[in-house]
Each structure stands twice: as C-alpha cells, then as structure tokens.
C-alpha cells in the first residue's frame, strides 16, 4: 500500500497537471463540506440595500441584482452541484455496471436471457440517440423540477456509457480460462459474474467515474441555466450565470463571471483527475511513467555526481 501511495505521489510530481487537478477537486470538496461555516453571508438572503455592488473587501465577488453575496453563493454552490453530480454518476455507474455485466455475460447463444440482453442494448441505443441535453430537459419536464429529477436525468443519460463499457469488458473476460473453469466447476452464473467477472472488468469504470462527475456538474449547471434545474435562489453555478447574464450588457460582469469561472475550473479539475486515473489504471502507461521517473532519477543522480566533481 505504501509503495502504491508512494508511486502515486511520485507520479503527481512527474505530471504536475494531475496535481493541479487533485488540488482543484480537493478545494471544491472542502468548499462543499465547509461552506456554511466559511461563507460570510447567507447564500439565499436578498439584500436590496447592497445590490450590484462591485467586488470589494466586504463582498469579494460583489453582489448580484437583488444583493445576494456572490462569493457566499459561489462557494456554497458545490454542495448542490457536487452532490447532484456524484449521486447521478454513482446511480448510473451502479445500474450501468450491473446491467452491462449481465448483458455481456448473456450475449451469446439463444434463449430468453439473450433476447433480453439484446433488448437492453437496443434500449440503450435509443437512449443514446437523443442529444444528451434535450433528453435531460425532457426528463425534467416530465418528472417535475427538483433536485431528485436532475439526479435521475444525469443517471439516465450516463447509464448507457457504463453499460457499454462493462459489456465490452465482459465480452472479452467471459472467454477467459478462469471463467470457463468456474463454469466447469459448477459455479452458478450469479456467483461467476460477482466473483470473477466484475472485479476483473471494473478498472475502466473507475476511470470513467471522475470524468462523469465533471460532466454531471456541467449538465446540472446547463439545466439550471435554462431554468430546468434547481430552483432560484438555491446557490448553483448555472442558475447564477443565468440570473446574472442580463447585467453583463449594462456593464455588471461579476454576477455571471465568478460562477462561470468556478464552474469551468471545477470541471477542468475533474477532467484532469479522470485523465490521471485512466493513466494510472493502464498498466502499459503506468510502466512508461515508471520508466520515465527512473530515467529522471538517474539523470538527477548523474547531475549530483557531476556537481560533486566525480
């Protein structure tokens, strides 16, 4: 374990952009956890005596059209955005992974299970044929505007990704000797899938998780921007941008720009983390990185020697 952590630490040093990614994510998570204690003002309280004030010491990011403190709202927003995105992503990955494993396992041969697998895949095709955003809006319109619906929308639009990912993994794993051995030994299908297939197919799914959390935040914000996501005045980046963008024309840029920056930086952070997980979970690329780090160490050692005049 120590060596894995050590490797991880050294990998971050070798690829500083990943370190930036983890730092951003850590910051966002900290904001989500501690915002109520850190925020200088209530994020939902209008104060008509201080509307559209420029960023200042009293209001770091300024105030919006009804006098709510933008800094307090921007740092409280991850509580909503992150929660929705994580819940949506987890839901989609759990359901998608389970379904994907079943569909992959039962995709060859005949019988009702195979037909069912086929039907599930076609249903996923239909889901994916819709533009993600349009589908999410339609879902929110049908189920009503609430945080739960946005979670469901994210889960729905992401599920086919996990389904396909898992299925393609399972298709190759189910032909492995150890799976055949399990079958021959009389192990039930359920146990085979649970004990032998899923654990060996899960790595790419984990890499996908982080990227999807970033997308989930983006989708939540986009839905709120068009008015289909969370309700005002819940602090949420997309809805803040939407509430503030009319002011940009008349010169008050801060109500939109700060939540916009927060959103962009957060999604960027999650993408970097996703990329790092993808790299670290790929044995070939991990080895390249390890070799690179060794070469670098060797060069550094050589320089030391030269310096010492040896």
């Amino acid at each position, binding site marked *: 374990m120590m060596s894995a952590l050590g490797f991880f630490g050294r990998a971050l040093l070798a690829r500083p952009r990943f370190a930036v990614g983890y730092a951003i994510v850590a910051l966002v998570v900290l904001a989500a956890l501690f915002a109520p204690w850190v925020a200088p003002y209530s994020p939902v309280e*209008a104060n*008509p005596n201080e509307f559209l004030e420029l960023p200042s010491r009293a209001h770091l990011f300024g105030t919006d059209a009804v006098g709510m403190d933008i800094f307090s709202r921007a740092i409280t927003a991850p509580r909503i955005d992150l929660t929705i995105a994580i819940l949506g992503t987890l839901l989609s990955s759990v359901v998608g992974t389970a379904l994907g494993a079943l569909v992959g396992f039962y995709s060859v041969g005949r019988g009702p299970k195979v037909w069912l697998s086929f039907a599930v895949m076609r249903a996923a095709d239909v889901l994916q044929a819709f533009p993600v955003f349009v589908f999410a809006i339609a879902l929110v319109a049908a189920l009503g505007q609430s945080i739960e619906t946005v979670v469901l929308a994210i889960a729905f639009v992401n599920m086919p990704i996990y389904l396909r990912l898992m299925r393609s993994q399972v298709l190759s794993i189910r032909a492995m000797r150890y799976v055949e051995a399990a079958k021959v030994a009389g192990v039930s299908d359920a146990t085979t899938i649970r004990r032998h297939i899923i654990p060996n197919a899960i790595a790419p799914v984990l890499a996908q998780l982080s990227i999807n959390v970033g997308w989930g935040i983006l989708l939540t914000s986009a839905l709120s921007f068009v008015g289909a996501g969370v309700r005002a005045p819940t602090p949420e980046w997309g809805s803040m941008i939407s509430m503030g963008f009319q002011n940009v024309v008349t010169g008050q840029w801060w109500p939109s720009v700060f939540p916009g920056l927060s959103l962009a930086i957060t999604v960027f952070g999650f993408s970097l983390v996703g990329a790092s997980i993808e790299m670290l979970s790929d044995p070939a690329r991990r080895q390249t990185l390890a070799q690179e780090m060794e070469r670098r160490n060797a060069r550094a050692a050589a320089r030391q020697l030269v310096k010492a005049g040896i």
Partner: protein
Amino acid sequence: MSDRDAGSGFPQNRRQFLRNSAALGGASLAAGAAALPGPALAQGASDTLVVASPATPQGLDIEFDVSLGSIDTLGALYEYMLGYEKMADPHAPGVMREDTGVHPDKPNGLALKGKLAESWEVTPDGRKATFKLREGVKSNWGNTFTAKDVKWTWDRKFNLKGQGLFQTAVLGLHTPDQIKIEGDHAISFNLEKPNPLLLKQQCNLANPIYDSVKCAQAGGKDDPWAVKFLKNDSAGFGPYRLKQLLRGQQAVFEARDDYWGDKPAMKRVIMKEVPTSASRLSLLDGGAVDIAQFLQPRELQSLKGSKTVAVDAVNASYMIWLELNAAIKPFDNIDVRRAFNYAIPQDEIIRTIYYGYADKQTAPMPYIYPMADTSFFDYNLNLDKAKALLGKAGLGGGFSTTISYNAGDPTQEPIALLIQTSLRKIGVTITLEKLPAGVFYEAVTKRQKPVIFYLDSPWTPDPGYSMYLYFNQKSYVDYSNYKNDRVDQLITEGLETLDDKIRQQKYTEVQKILMSEAPWGFLAYPKYTMARKAGLKGFTYYTSNNLRFQDFSRA
C-alpha cells in the same frame, strides 16, 4: 430572406455585408438588413422611422391576435370612430398623452374628438348613441367609407366570436340588430341599459373599422369575414398601409397620401424584430434604429446621460401584481392576504428592480384612470403587522407556499427573491417556481397556483371596465378567484349609469373593500418607457400601451 434579395437590393460583397451587420450590433438584424435598401439604415433618410421591436406582428387581426407586435401596427393601419383629445403629459416633458379624465363641462363628460365619426349624440337616457360619419374618407384600397363599414365591423365581432365578443358584451350588445344603419353616413348603437363605456369603447384599440367592400371581395364566399386576408394584410382607413410583412424579421409600412387626416411626417416605417433587449439597446445606442422598444429598467438606466438617445418614462396603465388565490388555503383567509401584502417590500422593488421606472401599486386599478383612489392603500412594509395578522389567522408559526413566475419577464424572478427574503422573516417559507412563458399563461388562466405573478393593463380608461375584468366573479380574468357579491353588485351598478358622481361613489366603495380584502399582492405600476433618438419628437402615450407611428417626427 434570400441571397437574391441581398444581391439585388444591397449592392455590396459578402465581407462588407458581414462587417456592416456586425457594426449594427446584432446577428438578429443581419438577416433582415439584407432586404433593406441602403438609405433605410443610413441616417440620411429623415422620413423613415426604424423601430427595433421584440417581435414582428404574428397576425394583423385584433380579433385573434393581441401580441406585442400586432398592437403596435393597429393604430397605423386602421382608423377609429373616436379618439381622446391629446394633452401634454404633466410629468414627462415633451410627451403627449390622451386626456382620459372626467370633464363635467364637456359633452358626456369626456374630452373626445371625432375621427371617422364627425359628430355624435347620446340620448339623455344613455341608451342610444347616434354617430354622423365623415364623408369622403378613403381606405387603403380606395373604397369610400360608409355606415356599412361600421356595421360590418361589428357584425364580424358577433360572428367570429373571438376577442370581439368581449367588446360586444362589455357594451351590453346581444344581437347585431342593435347597431343600425341610419343613412349612408349615420349609424346608431341601441342599448337596453345605459352604458358609460359606449363612447369610450369607440376609442379602444380593439375596435378598428374595416373596409367592408375590400374584405368582402378578398374573402369571397368561403371566408365572408376575411379572416385569412386580414391576418396578413389590412383593409382600413388609417394613415399607413402595409408594404411588407416578413414574420420574425420585419414589417414595413408606407404613409398614405390619400389619408383623410393630417399626413404623417414619417413616410416609411420599418419595424425590425430584435428579440433580445440587449441587442435592441445596442442598436439604438449605435444609432442604427430610432426606437428601441421594451428595454429593461437597468438598460434604460445605462442610457442616462447619453447625448444621442433620450428616454421618456410615463405613468401608464400597466399593473404587476401577485394573484393570491382565494380558492387555495391559506389565501382563502383575508388576514393571510393582508399579512402577505404587509410583507411585500414595495419600495425596494421599485428602487432595486425598476430603478424608479415604476411606482408603487396603491389601488386595485391603474392609478392614472379616472376615479382611482389610492387613499385606501395601507400596505407599507410592516413585518410586525404582518406577523400579528398571521397570528390572528392561526398561522403564527408561519406556513409554506409557492410563488410562480414567468421566465420570459426578467423582472419577476428578482422581485420574487426580494419577497421570499422578506417573508422568510415572518416564518413564511416560499418555494419559487419559474415557468416558461407558454406554460405560465396557461397556469394563470387555470387558477391552480397559490400565488402567481401577473402583468396586465385594462385598455379602456374606466374604473368599471378595469375592476369588472379582475374582480367580478363572472369575469374570465378574475384569476385570483376573488368572490364578493357586494363588489360585483357595485361594479355592475356603476356600469349602468352615466352619472359620474354616482359612479365615483360606487367605485370608491369598491376600491375600499378591495384594498381591505387584498385579493392581490400589490406590487407596482411599471411605467411605459420610450427609448428613442434624441431628435425624434412627438411620442404620445395611449392607455393601450402601443405606438402610433403617425405621432413621430424629427426635430
């Protein structure tokens, strides 16, 4: 818009065209600009008026279309029987408005002037009005105006049963026979009961007179009321004719040389569709248009101090309020409705959201209308009083409810946020529900939301007309489900007498009751604003909140 148009009417290459379009400040304008001959956008053309509007007319027939773009074209294309005298606006220098007040010294107590009707007479019992019609008036199709045109116009309302049905009902007209031709140039309206609206309705924007000869000819046998024709073209006696209507892009009007009255100074009017207010603002600021309609208060504020652009803001018939649904708990309780009103931060709404381009709503009808009485308004922000009233209603611990608002109106969300914060202080938890514009109007008419915003204006400057619309339980527009038999009775009695003293007495009592029972959450009287080039003169305000292009001229 085709490329062919761009090639023939606008001799310039693609790059120049794009550059010019960009300079004009909006991609939305670019499509339409291709069809304009050069001078229309250049500012040398002093007799061309260019208006940036949120929308071009969808239809031109008031029977079926009362959208923003449509109501701005009616006064230009059509003529009316009567009009109000104009007077200088007492608060806005250089602006004219209709004199809609009570004038005991004038015939019928009104400051009216004849338009298609040259003179008129109402019998002492108030049940019959006879109009002597102007002779020698030509329509935009060259047909001569006669009594048949007036008759046909009202017959059309009875037959089509669109919004005209309301116009007949409000006058107490039950059959077309009540409107009688009394000669080639004379017509009478015959009522069962006296009606103080009889003359006022002749000025209403919704009652333009049609050229019946052209309509019959254009409609033929299949379409005797020329519904298809009047949707896309006009047949009237107004100062302009329609030259072109490209929905979603522009409408072009041309002044008529054979118009009976004063010839308009603006010979050509181009109404361009520019949906976003920010683009309209930049077009006006950049000098590309003469008028930018319906700018947001903050945008108007940003024009202050400009040398090239002027903003007129006049007291108007607009009202914005919250429908407190009396059929949904706890708003069935008068104390709760009163408490709600005491918690509305009206002053802050006027200052923060409207930047002063509105006044506090202090009466249940437009404050500019005759007999409006603002003295019963007592709802200045007072959270202690609000809390006490909630306690009296058994809701001392507060309650939860939802306020629904229109996503299409950028002022409603911030107003809702201010109210939410204020009510939170007395324990009332508000959920905000943002509804897309289409769904919003349906929600208002269905009357199933506990609290919903509404912005409206009763066009006829009359207390009975206005309060009948919103508070009579038989009215379709009583969206707050308010029911009070005494109020109904008083409103109706006031609509059956011509005696202004009696009317005043009754409508004062109605306003007193309404203010104390608070069927609405009273918010604001938004002003009608005109953002125009500084050199454009003649803006006149009408209670139907529309433009009439013939009013404008250049200094």
